[in-house]
């Protein structure tokens, strides 16, 4: 029973990891940019939510209404103002610049919020649970978060493959020059992609801040989870990313079940196994 519980909790955790990963995957897919600061943006979103909930006295879940648009705005401005200047044939400049951003965000947060761990309290929903057959109890909050994660992935999938915006993303990703000939301003399209990525990051950050305690230094760790979920699932496949997140979450929880010290190790081992057996991930996009 403990094992089944570990797996179920792992699946639910995997939804959060998929959220970490989805934004990462999106911008890599559209503009081949690896955002080293991705994890720090997740933490930034969590702190923004913390400030919002303190200032307005609202439930942290409601801060999504504020944090998502603010992060999207930051993403657009960041892309147009800085990151677009770094994109080119060389992949090193964007790596270095986002690495620098990571340092700046971490230290900025440290300066403002100190190194103390923080946690947001979502009230009674945090301790509510539903009973599943077989004597399992699953928290309502993790369930809601998982459902939202799946919905976000589905929404991204829809945007990417059904909407005009997604068509523009794919066209610019395929051939930047030719996409410009279609009247698409790639600087703007990239800005929108980063805005969408950070909007997803905002959801991930708020959930992270409710689920666990956080401090300014945990960003890079979240980035690793995101990377691992993306690569396990296969680059460019959002549903694959969700499954990658779930595999990572389940592995971590099974590891923790064997020995509490093995939680992270088990996740990394699962990642290495997938990388060794299927270097392109489990469900790579068919090109």
């Amino acid at each position, binding site marked *: 029973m403990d094992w089944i519980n570990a797996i179920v909790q792992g699946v639910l955790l995997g939804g959060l990891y998929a959220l970490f990963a989805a934004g990462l995957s999106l911008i890599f897919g559209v503009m081949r940019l690896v955002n080293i600061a991705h994890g720090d943006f997740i933490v930034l979103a969590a702190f923004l939510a913390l400030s919002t909930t303190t200032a307005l006295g609202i439930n942290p879940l409601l801060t999504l209404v504020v944090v998502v648009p603010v992060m999207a705005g930051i993403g657009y401005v960041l892309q147009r103002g800085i990151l677009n200047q770094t994109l080119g044939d060389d992949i090193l400049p964007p790596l270095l610049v986002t690495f620098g951003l990571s340092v700046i965000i971490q230290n900025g947060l440290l300066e403002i919020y100190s190194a103390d761990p923080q946690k947001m309290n979502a009230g009674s929903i945090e301790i509510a649970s539903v009973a599943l057959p077989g004597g399992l109890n699953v928290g309502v909050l993790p369930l809601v978060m998982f459902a939202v994660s799946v919905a976000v992935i589905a929404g991204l999938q829809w945007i990417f493959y059904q909407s*005009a915006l997604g*068509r*523009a993303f794919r*066209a610019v990703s*395929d051939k930047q020059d030719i996409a410009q*000939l*279609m*009247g698409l*301003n790639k600087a703007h399209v990239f800005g929108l992609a980063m805005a969408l990525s950070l909007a997803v990051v905002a959801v991930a950050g708020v959930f992270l801040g409710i689920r666990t305690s956080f401090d300014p230094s945990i960003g890079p760790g979240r980035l690793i989870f995101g990377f691992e979920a993306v690569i396990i699932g296969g680059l460019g496949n959002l549903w694959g990313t969700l499954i990658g997140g779930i595999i990572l979450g389940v592995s971590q929880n099974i590891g923790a079940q064997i020995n509490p010290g093995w939680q992270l190790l088990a996740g990394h081992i699962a990642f290495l196994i997938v990388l060794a057996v299927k270097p392109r991930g489990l469900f790579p996009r068919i090109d």
Partner: protein
Amino acid sequence: MSDPLLSTRALDAHYGDFQALFAVDVSIEAGEVIAIIGANGAGKTTLMRSITGLLPNGNDMVRFRSKPIGASRADQIAKLGVAMVPEGRQLFQSLSVEENLVIGGQMNRKGPWDLHKVFQLFPVLKERRAVPATALSGGQQQMVAIGRALMSNPELILFDEISLGLAPIIIKSIYEALPDIIGEGMSAIIVEQDIAKALSVAGRVYCMQEGRISLEGRSNELSREQISAAYFGV
């Protein structure tokens, strides 16, 4: 004479330190079809890239409707009504046939061309609308590339080497369709290595050699000797 639809004036284009075009003067009137011929490396494609804004130049070097556009971005120039069928077709591989066409029309410029009309012109594309664009044969891909450019209802359409890499029978059918395509009051610049094909549809022709215009004249007034001298530089 009224102002031309598009003109280049003393256009110099560079790739880094390498100068690819030298003082190129080309102009096209509204409704006119011109051809630009020349050997490989003569600068034809560079000229197309300069006109469409993929290669930025001095602002005054290219004018569209008397407005300087030499330094404008490609998407801004596209919105003015300049479309290109690029060399090698350059379809978006992640998009279906229909999506490739729709994205060509995403600027919502008014005009006769829409999805329905493109499918009328190339019925085979309607049958294969849902497949990835790169799953088509070369000739069908060229139809998509042409349709994609038409979807923006351009005033000026550039055809860059549309016969390259296609079977002669396909080239023939595409050239037979061209008058219909251009017949809607559009202007067109046709870039070709195949001189006979170019002369058959264009009223005027420019010949390029080593980044310069080596000959200019009406298609029916130029002799073969003049053209081959300008083409090969002998």
